[in-house]
Every structure is written in structure tokens, then in C-alpha cells.
């Protein structure tokens, strides 16, 4: 029988991507693939171009050079964006007074991918409940989003992405400022989604020293791609030691 690895398909290909904001390169000639079933962490210190790269993949920014293909299509051609669930950096940009319930936030994901709107009912409501249960937020569906903790809001955003049955989840700094125990639960949940639902997970983080054991692949950025490969090998690599020595671990696991 073929191994699991052999069944992996190329989902996203990043090819020679360069980007600058007008004051020097933020990304220089970055290339690496993202395959189905990957659990990939894109890491690197602040200013290393992680978020920029994520935005390029999502079509929010246009690279100066190079291109990104998603499921065989260039970002410009790609139209099936609901297959890519984006989970933004938590809470920071959300207006806490915004009158929207958890249920409504998840419904945004489903409804916005429709050409013509229809009322949220029946099958949609089941889909919303299921997505919320998958992230352990089933009981909160009528709560106002602004009344939840940052970690809970993060889960709701994941549910919003899950409601569209994505192939990939992209998370921007999902565990910044979250305590170790909650973080562990969070990664367990991501691993379940990765293994059981076969969702490819891509997350970016600047906390180099505390990449969770669930992460399988690492792409380490510092304007250029300095490492791409398995997590275990990365932990033994010189690059990792150098980054730790440079103080890029930032947040310790045991505090």
C-alpha cells in the first residue's frame, strides 16, 4: 500500500516570491510547496515577512516578482476561496461593541460565498452548530462575540472557516498571549482537524522556541526562506539554535 505521504497532493505552490513595501525587500525569492494534510508552521522573527507571505497567498497583496498557485491556478484565477479558511490574528481588530452573535459570525462564512442570499435556516443552522461544536463553542452560539475572551473569539473564527468545509486553514499568530494550557488544547484541536477532517493547517508564529509538538513541518522565514522541512530536523538544525541564541523565542513555555 502507498504510504500517507504518497497520497499527498500539492495544494499551494509558492514560487520565487519577492515583495517590498517601498523600503527594501520584505520577502526575497521565497519558494516552497504546501501539500495536502500538512501541519505547517511558518516561523520567523517579527518583520521577517510571514504575514506578508500569508497575505500574498490569500490574494490580499500582489508580489513584486514570482507567483503563488493554489490548486493549480494562479491567485488571480483562483475563485474557490471558501476552500481556504483564513483565521485572522485574534481580537485585535474586532470592535468589541459590534452587535453580532457567535451564530451570525459563523453564518457570515457560509452566506458570503453565495451569489444570492437566502435565509439562514435548516441545513445552514446544522452546519453552523456542527462547526461550533468542532471547536468546542457549541454552547456559545447566541452570545455576543464582543463578550467572549480572545481565545474563544479565535475559536469562533475557526468555526466560521470550518462551516465552508475548507481544505486548508490559515491561522495568523493564533496563540499569541494565550497561556500554555489553553495553547495545548488549541493545538490538540488543530491536530484533530488535521487528522480526522484531513484539513491542511498552515499557521504563522514568531514564537520560534515554543512550536508545538503537533507541528510537522516548518518553513522558517527571515526575508528569505532559511529552512523548510520537518519539525524534528528543524529543532536539531543550526538555524534553530542560532535563532534561539538571537532571542527569537520571545515567550517561554514555562512561565
Amino acid at each position, binding site marked *: 500500500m502507498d504510504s500517507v505521504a504518497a497520497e499527498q497532493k500539492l495544494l499551494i505552490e509558492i514560487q520565487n516570491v519577492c515583495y517590498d513595501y517601498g523600503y527594501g525587500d520584505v520577502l526575497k525569492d521565497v519558494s516552497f510547496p504546501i501539500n495536502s494534510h500538512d501541519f505547517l508552521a511558518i516561523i520567523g522573527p517579527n518583520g521577517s515577512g510571514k504575514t506578508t507571505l500569508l497575505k500574498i497567498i*490569500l*490574494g*490580499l497583496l500582489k508580489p513584486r516578482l514570482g507567483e503563488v498557485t493554489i490548486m493549480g491556478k494562479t491567485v488571480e484565477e483562483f*475563485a474557490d*476561496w*471558501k476552500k*481556504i479558511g*483564513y483565521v*485572522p490574528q485574534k481580537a485585535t*481588530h*474586532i*470592535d468589541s*461593541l*459590534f*452587535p*453580532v*452573535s457567535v*451564530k*451570525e*459570525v459563523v*453564518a*457570515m*462564512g457560509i*452566506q*458570503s*460565498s*453565495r451569489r*444570492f*442570499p437566502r435565509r439562514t435556516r435548516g441545513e445552514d443552522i446544522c452546519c453552523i452548530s456542527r462547526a461550533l461544536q468542532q471547536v468546542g463553542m457549541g454552547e456559545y452560539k*447566541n452570545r*455576543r462575540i464582543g463578550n467572549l475572551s480572545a481565545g474563544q473569539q479565535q475559536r469562533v*473564527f475557526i468555526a*466560521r472557516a470550518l462551516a465552508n468545509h475548507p481544505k486548508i486553514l490559515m491561522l495568523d499568530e493564533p496563540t499569541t498571549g494565550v497561556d500554555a494550557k489553553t495553547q495545548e488544547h488549541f493545538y490538540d484541536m488543530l491536530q484533530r482537524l488535521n487528522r480526522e477532517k484531513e484539513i491542511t493547517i498552515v499557521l504563522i508564529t514568531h514564537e520560534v522556541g515554543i512550536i508545538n509538538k503537533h507541528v510537522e513541518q516548518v518553513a522558517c522565514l527571515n526575508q528569505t526562506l532559511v529552512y523548510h522541512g520537518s519539525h524534528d530536523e528543524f529543532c536539531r538544525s543550526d538555524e534553530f539554535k542560532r535563532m534561539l541564541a538571537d532571542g527569537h523565542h520571545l515567550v517561554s513555555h514555562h512561565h
Partner: protein
Amino acid sequence: MEVFFLYGFFQRAFLAGVFIAIACALLGIFLILRRDAMIGHGLAHVTFAGVALGLYLNVMPLAVALFVAVVASWIIMKLKVKAGLHGDTAIAIFSSVGFALGILLVTLSQSFNVDLFSYLFGEILAIETSEVVFSIVLAFVVVLLVVVNYHKFMYMTFDRESAKASGIKVDRLDGLLTVLTAVTVVLGMKVVGILLVSALVVIPAAAGLQVASNFKQAIVLSTFISITSIVIGLVLAFLLDLPASGSIVLLSFLAFGILFVFRRSRR
């Protein structure tokens, strides 16, 4: 109550008022949450230039105002995105330039008269049948377009970047929202006049937002407050011989005040 409806002018005012009230409340919610509450105020001033131009050229001021407001709204939006001006600078500039232009044109056309005053202070009880039809059709189109794009507007207002990443054409919808606002401001001008129209867009929505715990509630409550203020305002204006515009705006402010106090006392 039936006695009012025996009067044709009251029926007309009532019908047009209700439709415009719905359009104002719906847009108001999105504008406030987008921190664009002042755009109604700015466009109202630009609308004054449009009315003045209509009076000057002696063609339907309402139609000219509509055209001018839509064009201005488009320019304001483009300036906001591309000119690198801070926040609502574009609105502030357009609002005063619009008014200055209006004053100039009104003086040139020597139309400092009752006609102009009806645009400044509103005269819904004197609305003509053709204007009622015009207002209802336009208000209906505004409401329809907001309903069709409801989830997308909500998504991009709540979390613009994620909305964009999910494939929503946010720039195009920004444009649509701005143009719809311009149309609504011109319609609202017939009800409460240029000087008070921004209140019609902002206050009922702000009132609804005081107590709503979800988006649907905010929409329903604001629309209810908007309609009730207009209906009761019209009745009071008719019975007590008060100006309809002032009554309508003060009533919506009353609703806002009550809900504001209610929210503060709940804490």
C-alpha cells in the same frame, strides 16, 4: 387615526416617509459600524449644491441633487482610498465646499425663497405625487440592494480583511454602499430637509445599536424606531401644526435617549 388618511397629502407623506425610513435605518447601521457616520452629513451639504444648481438651471432640483450627490459620493470614496487623506478629511472638505457652492448658486439664481427653504428644512407634508413615486421606487431599490448584499456588508463591516480573503469584492461593495447612501440622503432631504437629513440616517441606527445583542436585532430595532419616529412625527406635525422635520428628528432622539439610559442602567 383614520381621519388622517382621508387627506391625500397625509397619505402621500406617510407612504414616502415609511419607505425612506427603512432605507435610512438600514444604511445607518452599516455607516455607524464602519465609522462613517459623518458621510450622511457631508453628502447632505453637497446635496445643497445640487439643489441650488437645479434651481439655478431651472430643472428638477431633486433629480439634479441626486446626480450631484452620487457623483460626489463616488469622488469622496476614491479620495478616501487613494489620496492618502486622513479619515474623514475628504468628507469635511466636500461638505463645506458643497455648501459654499450652493450659497453661490442660490444667490446667482436669486432663489432665496420658500422653495429653497423647503429643501433646507424639509416639507414632507407638501410632497407631490410624482415625488412620492420617485421616492418610493428609489427607496425600494436601496432596500433591495442592501438586503441582497446584507451578509457581505455585515462581513466586511465586521472583519474587512477576512471578508476580502473569502473572495468578497470589498472595494466594489464600498462603492455601492456610498452610492446608496447618496441616494438615501437625497430622499431623506424631502422628509426632514438638508439640515437634518444626516440625523435621519444616524440617530435611529444609533438608538438600535444601544441595546441590540445581535445584528438582526439591531436592524429590526433601528428600522422600527425610524418608522415610528416618522409616523408619529407626521401625526404630531399635523395635529399641533409643528414642523414635521423637527418633530421627527426630536422623536428619534427621544428613542435614542431612552435606550441609551436603559443600556447604561443595565450595567
